[in-house]
């Protein structure tokens, strides 16, 4: 992991890159973006500089929400509200690639890590990402619980009762496999 903190332009580039990769095809919403960036930080070890807290919908960064607004205001991504489905859709614009280029010095050295996480989790629904992201949060803040499957499952269920036991177990297994294959301690 690089020690250099990403600049504002680097962070905007990351948002633009995710919108470009996942955008409209994958129905990237605000919640999904939050979870993807959280996973990049926790599983991909990409130092994004965002701080996440645990809220009703799982890990959330206010700084990331602010940066998304800013990139959208500059036309770097489009954030359109769909009133019938009551959600925001993030997608790329004609300026997205330019925004990515301006953070090239950050994106390039992290490209492999970013691709790995996006390839694995990029196409998921926000609801699925919320579960994986909750597991990632527990891993960070309660490593003892994370190490033990039984306590991890119980903690995740208590934090997120809307998920069935089978869903939790399957997500846990997937996360641990992903971390093992990435050569990191799980």
């Amino acid at each position: 992991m690089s020690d250099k903190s990403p600049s504002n332009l680097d962070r905007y580039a990351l948002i633009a890159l995710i919108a470009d990769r996942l955008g409209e095809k994958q129905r990237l919403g605000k919640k999904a973006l939050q979870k993807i960036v959280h996973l990049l930080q926790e599983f991909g070890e990409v130092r994004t500089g965002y701080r996440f807290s645990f809220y009703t919908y799982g890990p959330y960064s206010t700084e990331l929400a602010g940066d998304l607004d800013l990139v959208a205001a500059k036309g770097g991504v489009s954030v359109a509200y769909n009133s019938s489905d009551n959600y925001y859709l993030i997608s790329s614009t004609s300026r997205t690639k330019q925004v990515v280029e301006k953070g090239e010095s950050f994106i390039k050295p992290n490209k492999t890590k970013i691709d790995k996480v996006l390839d694995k989790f990029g196409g998921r629904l926000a609801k699925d990402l919320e579960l994986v992201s909750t597991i990632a949060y527990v891993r960070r803040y309660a490593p003892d619980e994370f190490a033990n499957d039984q306590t991890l499952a119980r903690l995740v269920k208590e934090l997120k009762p809307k998920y069935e036991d089978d869903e939790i177990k399957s997500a846990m297994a997937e996360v641990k496999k992903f971390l093992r294959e990435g050569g990191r301690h799980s």
Partner: protein
Amino acid sequence: MKADKSRRLEHEDYSAAALEFGLKDVIENHPEAKNHGIGIRDVLSVFGASPATAGVLVWKDLVSGQMDADRMDYLLRDAYHAGVQYGRYDLDRVVQTIRLCPDPETRGHHIGVDEDGIHAVEGLLIARFMMFTQLYFHKTRTIYDFHLAECMRHLLTKNGGEFPPTRNISKFLQWDDWKVLGRIAEGAGGDHGEIIRTRQHYRPVFMTPEVASDDDLLRATELEEKLKALGCIARDAEKSWYKSGPDEIKVWRTSGGTAKSVPLATLSPVVNGLTKVNQRRLYVPISERKAANEIIQKNEEKKK
């Protein structure tokens, strides 16, 4: 839950430790708290993710969310003490219109606002925006954050430049305003303590517009590099001053006989028009101001 010891301690960790240390008895023995079955663990759970947190996530919004009690309070208090009017808004109306909204997705509830509270909440958000740009991110107030942080690092040299960890919370709590200001007044605060004592703070020599374009930010980065030898430091308006908290403020809206919560920004052109401030400022020691200005001017001429 055992915390991850490798991560850096944050202010929420200290808040939790201070609460447990100083208020455990008060909370657990208070008749109201007893009546409602609230113990110290329930209170602490709003600071992290634990089994107990699951039951209080909705209340977390009231402590650390878009319309949390702390923010609503400090806007009014800071405006009063700073002698400015920017922070004023209709608190009573906001409180009257706050409600719990059913959330089919989580099968729980989230904090929202009634539709007729929209304008009161707009007032709150505008007050927050004005306080941020006019007071919290004021060019002089901001640089004192830097001087104070450096001064604290100096005062805490024996402790490796860091505050005592949460397990020594009583020692941490000794570092109050009286102790710090006393040390600075005694001349024990190092170079930056001296800067604070004599009010010879670093001066801004360059700043981007409040909403900086990519080119503005690149220019600031380029200048920062050129001014490095003069001890230049950069300050960014990174704080998300309005759309903070889990997603945006939700409005409980009834339409065609059905009700659902929708984001405030979709109903309020005022809120939708508020953009995050990403201004970057460059500061140099007061003694280097003239040299810095010359470098900046030369740089401008080269660009022409």
